């Protein structure tokens, strides 16, 4: 039996082990689940060491790039969480990560996820020279954004006009959740199709 064929059979049998959970929990499912967790942990550990720690830290220290001592020290601080007496040192490393991460992200995030999104909702409602569906789309965006924002405005009771607009916002939110649910169903079925295709095509050769 070739290695590839063995791999196909192993993958097929493990797939069936996982599928067996659909009937009820059983030892075959548990075995496959534990195997997956163990193999994943081992893979991530090895891959991260050889692709992250060694080339970025150890190789640089071996080349006498002494500025890399700083990340080494911060890494060691992280591990100090395992020793309660000096666990506070890990906060320095975390503070460094949060500080640099926030500094890196805050401006661009504000630009791409806030300002650009506001800009894209500033649409013209003037129907002159535009197809009706473009105007309708712009109108829906306008109403959806305004009513959605009103729904999330909690400093005023949702009664009267505010309540009416908020209810329109709820309708838009429901449509959004419905679309997300539809896409989620599609995603889950896609994964099932992928596994079924593997079993029928790669393993059994039926399709």
């Amino acid at each position, binding site marked *: 039996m070739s290695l590839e064929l063995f791999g196909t059979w192993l993958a097929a049998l493990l797939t069936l082990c996982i599928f067996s959970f*659909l*009937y009820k929990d059983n030892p075959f499912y548990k075995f496959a689940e534990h195997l997956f967790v163990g193999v994943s942990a081992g*893979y*991530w550990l090895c*891959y*991260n060491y050889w*692709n*992250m720690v060694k080339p*970025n830290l150890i190789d640089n220290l071996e080349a006498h790039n002494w500025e890399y001592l700083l990340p080494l020290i911060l890494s060691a601080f992280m591990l100090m969480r395992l020793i309660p007496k000096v666990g506070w040192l890990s906060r320095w490393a975390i503070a460094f990560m949060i500080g640099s991460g926030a500094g*890196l*992200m805050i401006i*661009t*995030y504000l*630009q*791409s*996820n806030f300002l*650009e*999104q506001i*800009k*894209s909702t500033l649409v013209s409602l003037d129907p002159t020279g535009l197809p009706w569906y473009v105007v309708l789309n712009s109108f829906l*965006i306008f109403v959806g954004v305004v009513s959605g924002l009103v729904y999330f405005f909690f400093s005023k009771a949702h009664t009267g006009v505010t309540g009416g607009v908020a209810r329109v916002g709820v309708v838009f939110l429901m449509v*959004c959740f419905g*679309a*997300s649910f539809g*896409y*989620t*169903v*599609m*995603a889950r*079925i*896609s*994964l*099932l*199709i*992928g*596994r*079924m*295709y593997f079993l*029928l095509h790669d393993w059994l050769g*039926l*399709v």
Partner: protein
Amino acid sequence: MKFLFFLLQMDRRIVFVLVALAVVAPLIMPLNLPIVVGDKVRRLYDAIDQLPARSRPVLVSVDYDPSTVPELQPMTLAVLRHCFSKEIPVIVTTMFPTGAGLARDAMETVAKEYPNLSYGTDYAYMGYKPGYSLVILGIGENFQATYPSDGYGTPSSKLPILKNVKNYDDIAIMVDFTASAAYEVWIMFAHQKYGCKVGAGVTAVMASDAYPYLNSGQLEGLLGGLSGAAEYEKLIGAPGTATIGMDAQSIAHILIIVLIILGNVAYFATRRHREPAQTATPQQGGSA
């Protein structure tokens, strides 16, 4: 009425069997249902299709792991086939450690179909690069300093495809295939900071979250889930596993819609015939 009560108390495993049949039957007996190409997919196709041969390279980032291969690998293959068929240079990379094998496999699979194109000149695999946002920012400053060597260990300076690639100015478009919010990071840094065109292929679960970026023009185009991949396969005229799976997808969706309608009809039609407590929580435990 008896049937309606049966629906409400039906064992969920019956639903599992029905869904399995709805998926398996069309795979064995294809129906060849039509695939309609949407605007968001066509926009990405057009953005790549208009690039001339031997132009600036397309950067493809394979940011997913084996758990989402059924959805994302077909679209990666479809976009790579599109680029290879038009002789548009392609640089493949990944920010996910578990995506390294998938990225290399996708590139090598498509490369075998185009023996006239050569590694290093027409396409390159840069491997896994840890650091994510730092890598994306690094490409904007100096591509070769960020990637001193390719995924096989060859120095980047020896790859002709990278000779004129200094930063994002020399990338025609980047396409991120991901099951995470990785595409948002590409938008934030590659597009927002450096002005690089960004396209995305995401799992269906995430597709609705990506629409605002499409609407604002921050994304050139969007492939969402298996249907996005199938639409792209149709555009390039190379049906693959996504096209094969779409029949099963459609039948399974019809089944789920029917089940949802039947469930609701049964729930409301039997409401008067049930105890108040049952009305509040009609389905518990092993029922569907």
